[in-house]
């Protein structure tokens, strides 16, 4: 009889103990979760991309990229990027189009190629592979500052580049304003095929300055980013770039033509001069960028850049894009870019025989007066709500200049002195 109450008490106690330990167990488990050792990085993310770029009758490029970012505690980030860039096809050698056949020596000096009358002077021996690696670290300094430091290196068979950069940002006004100051120092080594030609030496009597030469670029970048409203953010940058060293294009030449008033005026004489540019260049850019969220389905991005340098080039670049959400996951983004530049002081589409040689001369179409338009559309899909996304982009780029300049004479008037360039660009990007 004495055992019964004891037994009942024991059962009650057992139940009470079990319930208590069950209830007590929950916070214990939670406490253990909190105490788990911290992961070496809090978040891992990356991007894989590929670019296909093809000019009509000229260069084709394929450029796969992989970028990986490790985010550590305290908003510290380490980003590494690896790029391979493969180029094949033909490159414009700079000589003016002619109504007669023209024969050129390849850059190595070992071969020749002939361009038919009325055809663009393309050097078919163009081929290159470029490998580029970059690494950057960024972290907050206290509550109001952020520091970024990076290194970039790239190698192609005739060019090696190494650069270091750093920037410091300061957040103000409740993080609605960001001021940045950055610098970059780039050191390039150029080893052209066939040696670096002496500027303005002729193709027939090519002089070389040695197997290699070098160039340095120092950049300063001042930036202001401002939140204008809940939907609108604006950025203004000023960039100063100072280059010095070898800036000639070792593969570009300028045609000498028979002077006006002579038999065969405007025809090539068969003499071609190697490119020669100043060994200093000071570049200024003012860049304004804006993003406006419609608070519904779209984001409107627009930017403008004004550029000028001491080579006499100035340019205007306008860009506008509109990212529209089609559904919660799918989006489409049409874009337009318009670019116009003036020519360098020493740009010449041709050189007239018998006139004094200038100090500098180039017929590189990229330093000539031109306009360029890019039309594009991107379509993408969000794969989760943590930034995983895939997107495809198609673009068409056209570049055109002064095909019939006012100073052309004789047979030059019947040829295209600035053949236009059309390229199609395809891009796929996967973010994870």
């Amino acid at each position: 009889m004495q055992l019964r109450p004891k037994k009942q008490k024991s059962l009650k106690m057992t139940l009470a103990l079990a319930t208590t330990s069950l209830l007590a167990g929950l916070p214990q488990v939670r406490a253990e979760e909190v105490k788990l050792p911290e992961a070496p990085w809090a978040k891992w993310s990356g991007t894989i991309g590929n670019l296909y770029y093809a000019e009509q009758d000229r260069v084709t490029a394929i450029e796969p990229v992989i970028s990986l970012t490790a985010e550590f505690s305290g908003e510290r980030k380490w980003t590494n990027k690896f790029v391979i860039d493969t180029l094949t096809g033909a490159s414009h050698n700079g000589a003016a189009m002619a109504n007669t056949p023209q024969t050129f020596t390849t850059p190595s000096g070992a071969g020749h190629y002939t361009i038919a009358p009325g055809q663009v002077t393309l050097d078919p021996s163009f081929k290159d592979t470029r490998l580029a690696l970059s690494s950057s670290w960024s972290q907050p300094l206290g509550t109001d500052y952020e520091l970024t430091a990076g290194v970039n290196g790239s190698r192609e068979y005739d060019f090696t580049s190494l650069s270091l950069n750093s920037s410091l940002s300061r957040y103000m006004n409740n993080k609605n304003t960001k001021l940045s100051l950055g610098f970059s120092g780039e050191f390039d080594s150029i080893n052209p095929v066939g040696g670096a030609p002496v500027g303005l030496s002729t193709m027939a009597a090519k002089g070389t300055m040695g197997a290699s030469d070098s160039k340095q670029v120092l950049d300063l970048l001042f930036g202001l980013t401002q939140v204008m409203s809940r939907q609108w953010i604006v950025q203004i940058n000023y960039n100063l770039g100072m280059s010095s060293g070898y800036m000639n294009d070792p593969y570009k030449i300028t045609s000498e033509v028979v002077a006006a008033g002579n038999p065969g005026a405007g025809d090539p004489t068969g003499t071609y001069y190697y490119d020669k540019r100043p060994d200093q260049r000071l570049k200024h850019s003012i860049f304004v960028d804006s993003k406006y969220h419609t608070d519904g389905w779209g984001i409107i991005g627009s930017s403008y850049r004004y550029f000028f340098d001491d080579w006499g080039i100035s340019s205007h670049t306008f860009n506008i894009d509109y990212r529209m959400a089609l559904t919660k996951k799918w989006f489409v983004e049409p874009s337009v870019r318009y670019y116009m530049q003036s020519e360098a002081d020493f740009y010449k589409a041709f050189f007239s025989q018998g006139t004094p040689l200038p100090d500098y001369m180039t017929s590189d179409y990229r330093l000539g007066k031109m306009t360029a338009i890019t039309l594009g559309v991107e379509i993408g899909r969000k794969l989760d709500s943590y930034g995983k996304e895939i997107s495809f982009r198609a673009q068409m780029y056209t570049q055109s200049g002064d095909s019939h300049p006012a100073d052309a004479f004789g047979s030059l008037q019947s040829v295209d002195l600035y053949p236009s360039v059309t390229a199609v660009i395809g891009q796929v990007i996967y973010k994870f």
Partner: protein
Amino acid sequence: MKILFWILASVILSNCASLGVEPWERDLLSQDEMTFGSNAVELGYEQHTYFSKEATSGGNGFSGGGCGCN
């Protein structure tokens, strides 16, 4: 010219202090697509393409291209 620059800079900065949002109004601004340069790989593709085809570089980043393409 210098005086004009400093007047302009101080006007911009003093106006900035009255602009902006409160932390709880950042729902749209915190989206990735509202951050400048958030799609770094795409920006890299654009800068490399235009650096190799045009005389202008920089502004939205440094002007050195790290490339023998121009």
